[in-house]
């Protein structure tokens, strides 16, 4: 063998070369446990691949684009996506491939299929807290599929989850590596996890079990039955059974979530005899390792196989405000996302819309102070409720985009890891629809000079003008947006401003590659592809629209706030003095960037930024003068052809996007609102430039490279 280490009783390799998981499997085979046969591709192969392809440099550069602590979860996912895609598109070095193929041809011909799993060296048992950070591939047939899976497992060393726990895992581009287990696939009828000491009650043993393979249990798609076993006697002491409906089952290439047969639906995957066998193995493993163990197992017939076992020595303790577990929970299965989509479309968004409309219908000026105060607090409570729902339901839906991104990139292996976004393009984005209506009205004004003149003078739309009906219709359809807060201009003011600009150049980009993509798939893949694509499209739409709906609720709170301010300023204060929170001076529509205080510099030296690197979020190249949006009045000053520079494009600002030459945001990520809008309009966009609104000044001449994520500043005098 050139590379592969057989995981058999004579295996002497240490966990440093083959990883803890593989070492454990070899030990278990030595001790006579029933473990599927397999090999390990040691970590040295990973390093050889990285060295020869230059991927090591690529990873280093990716991780250093920005201070890691400054990255948001969306940016971390982007980094991970780019690294993953680079693994998939890097060709195997010729010599290495030949040597590895020679090894893989020695795999016994009687293996019906192969499983490829991660085994990271130096991974200590505390990493059980991080289960699921690295990928596995099962039911592989043929050497090509194995080669492909090896790269995927290697790449998962840099998964977004792993990057989040980079410090705890000791993940270092110079030192870390990944070994790979290549194992005979055992297709079990019942699978699960055994905890020799239950996580919540160390005095009992616990078994979780599902029908079929345990992939669906591990990723949370299927809820398992959970039985407790007395450690001393092996007797089952408690059974918690769930409704059995699905199982992960093998198909010709890969696995699929399938419906259970009627007889399976009616019974638990566990029975007394299986529990006895599991109890026996759990106790034996504890004796062997001298500590509590977690075991992944499967039964074919009544034969028990151990797929993985790990000692449990310590668990990770997290601060209560650590948001990383929440972030990891955003990884959702396809079924879960489909369910979520239904809930968002049928309950959440209509609910936000209903509340926003109801707020807009109240004439605040008719309320007395007491009523106004109550109305404000009621609205504030509604907003808090919807913000919570947004976090719990809307943000996880964004995972639909990622799911499709990974699926597409695995199949197509595109040069541009964001190519998949072009398949999600939709004319149904609310922001795009709204902009189209605004543009139509502006055109009517532009084409009727007398109307333009009249509106410039008194801002009143004549009843006989065709604009009147369009305007009224627009106000109904896009109600709730508080135009008065958009830089001091009302809707008519904005229309005049838009009409004064030349006709817009940016039109919504249109790409139709969906058909090409689907046509090239095998029937089985097409089925799943259609489902994932549908979820991703919904996710793309909702990602944008939910922001707008939430924006309307915000506007409802803001208008009440405004009315209170108005009365307080007029001295009508009774009953309103303590209604507003102390920080209510801040605009609720506009997340203002709190610039850090300027650092002092040697008085002899004047520092001028020249070139800033962020993340490429919308392809294209453009230049123009900067307009830094650091307060609402800057919105009204914005002119067509300027480069929008802001903390984050807020939903209520997107009507400016089609006029912009380019967009630069401090917040990072491909999935943020501004990036989605920029892609829709084909506008170059760079996100994730730390301190952008502070470093760049209004009037700076900027070149924006949306392919590489680079902004160049041409400032003649600092």
């Amino acid at each position, binding site marked *: 063998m050139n590379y592969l280490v057989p995981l058999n009783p004579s295996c002497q390799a240490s966990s440093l070369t083959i990883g803890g998981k593989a070492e454990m499997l070899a030990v278990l085979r030595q001790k006579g446990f029933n473990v599927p046969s397999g090999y390990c591709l040691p970590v040295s192969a990973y390093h050889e691949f990285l060295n020869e392809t230059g991927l090591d*440099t690529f990873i*280093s*550069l990716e*991780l*250093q*684009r920005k201070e890691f602590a400054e990255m948001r979860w969306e940016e971390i996912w982007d980094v991970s996506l780019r690294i993953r895609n680079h693994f998939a598109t890097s060709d195997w070095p010729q010599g290495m491939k030949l040597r590895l193929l020679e090894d893989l041809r020695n795999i016994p011909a009687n293996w019906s299929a192969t499983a490829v799993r991660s085994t990271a060296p130096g991974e200590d048992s505390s990493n059980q807290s991080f289960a699921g950070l690295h990928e596995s591939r099962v039911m592989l047939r043929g050497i090509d599929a194995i080669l492909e899976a090896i790269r995927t497992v290697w790449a998962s060393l840099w998964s977004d989850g792993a990057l989040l726990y980079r410090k705890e895992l000791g993940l270092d*581009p*110079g030192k870390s590596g990944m070994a790979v287990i290549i194992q005979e696939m055992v297709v079990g009828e019942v699978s699960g996890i055994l905890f020799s000491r239950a996580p919540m009650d160390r005095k009992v043993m616990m078994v979780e079990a599902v029908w079929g393979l345990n992939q669906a249990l591990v990723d949370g798609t299927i809820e398992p039955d959970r039985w407790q076993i007395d450690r001393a006697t092996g007797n089952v002491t408690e059974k918690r059974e769930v409704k059995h409906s699905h199982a992960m089952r093998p198909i010709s290439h890969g696995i699929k979530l399938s419906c259970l047969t009627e007889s399976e639906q009616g019974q638990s995957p566990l029975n007394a005899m299986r529990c006895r066998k599991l109890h026996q193995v759990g106790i034996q493993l504890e004796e062997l390792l001298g500590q509590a163990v977690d075991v992944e197992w499967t039964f074919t017939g009544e034969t028990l196989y151990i797929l993985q076992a790990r000692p449990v020595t310590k668990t990770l303790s997290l601060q209560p405000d650590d948001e990383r577990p929440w972030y990891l929970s955003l990884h959702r299965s396809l079924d879960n996302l489909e369910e979520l989509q239904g809930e968002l479309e049928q309950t959440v968004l209509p609910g936000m819309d209903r509340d926003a409309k109801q707020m807009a219908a109240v004439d605040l000026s008719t309320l007395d102070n007491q009523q106004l105060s109550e109305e404000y607090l009621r609205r504030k409570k509604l907003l808090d409720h919807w913000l919570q729902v947004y976090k719990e339901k809307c943000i996880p839906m964004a995972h639909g985009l990622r799911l499709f991104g990974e699926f597409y990139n695995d199949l197509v292996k595109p040069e541009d890891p964001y190519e998949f976004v072009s398949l999600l393009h939709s004319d149904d984005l609310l922001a795009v629809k709204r902009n189209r209506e605004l543009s139509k009205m502006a055109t009517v004004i532009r084409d009727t000079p007398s109307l333009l003149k009249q509106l410039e003078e008194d801002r009143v739309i004549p009843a006989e003008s065709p604009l009147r009906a369009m305007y009224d219709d627009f106000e109904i359809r896009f109600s709730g947006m508080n135009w008065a807060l958009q830089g001091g201009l009302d809707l008519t003011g904005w229309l005049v401003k838009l009409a004064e600009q030349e006709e817009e150049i940016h039109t919504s980009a249109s790409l139709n590659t969906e058909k090409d993509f689907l046509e090239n798939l095998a029937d089985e893949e097409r089925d799943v592809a259609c489902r994932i694509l549908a979820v991703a499209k919904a996710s793309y739409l909702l990602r944008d629209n939910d922001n707008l709906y939430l924006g309307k609720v915000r506007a409802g709170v803001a208008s009440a706030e405004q009315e209170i301010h108005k009365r307080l300023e007029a001295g009508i204060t009774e009953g309103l003095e303590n209604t507003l929170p102390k920080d209510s001076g801040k605009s609720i529509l506009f997340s203002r960037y709190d610039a850090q205080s300027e*650092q*002092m*510099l*040697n*008085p*002899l*030296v*004047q*520092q*001028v*930024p*020249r*070139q*800033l*690197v962020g993340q490429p979020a919308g392809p294209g190249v453009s230049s123009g003068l900067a307009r830094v949006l650091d307060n609402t009045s800057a919105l009204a000053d914005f002119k067509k052809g300027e480069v929008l520079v802001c903390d984050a494009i807020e939903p209520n600002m997107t009507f400016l996007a089609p006029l912009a030459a380019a967009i630069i945001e401090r917040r990072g990520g491909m999935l943020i609102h501004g990036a989605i809008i920029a892609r829709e309009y084909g506008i170059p966009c760079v996100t994730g430039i730390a301190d952008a609104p502070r470093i760049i000044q209004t009037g700076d001449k900027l070149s924006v490279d949306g392919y*590489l994520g*680079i902004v*160049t500043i041409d400032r003649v005098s*600092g």
Partner: protein
Amino acid sequence: MTNTKEWDMVVELLRQQTFAVLGTSRQGHPYSSLVAFSATTSGESLYFATTRATRKYHNLAVDNRITLLIDNRAEQDRPLYEAAAVTAYGSAEEMHDEIHLEALASYLAKHPQLKSFVTAPTTALFRINVEEYHLVQRFQNVTEFRMSR
């Protein structure tokens, strides 16, 4: 006084690096040569020495505008993402008389082994009056520094 982290990087390069690439011009054509250099703590002035028979000395006699590239690539252990380079722009002036002593002290503090070279009668010691520094770090992040005089 606190400096920005970018300026700290410039100061670090000026202090830690011993060699730099000097750019001069010969009939409109760029000409590069490797020189040992030193810098004042403020970064305002840089020093280097050359014998008077060299090409660079003749080039400077005709056109004293120069660039000096200082970078940390010699530190092989550093990962690529820590690569940094600063280019100084300014003019070179040959040192004479009393200011020569100040320049000499700066140069010898950094390159004591070059004493016989720099004090030879055929060697000229130059001061670069820096007008700007351009720092490139973290692969494409560029910051300019303008020196006031």
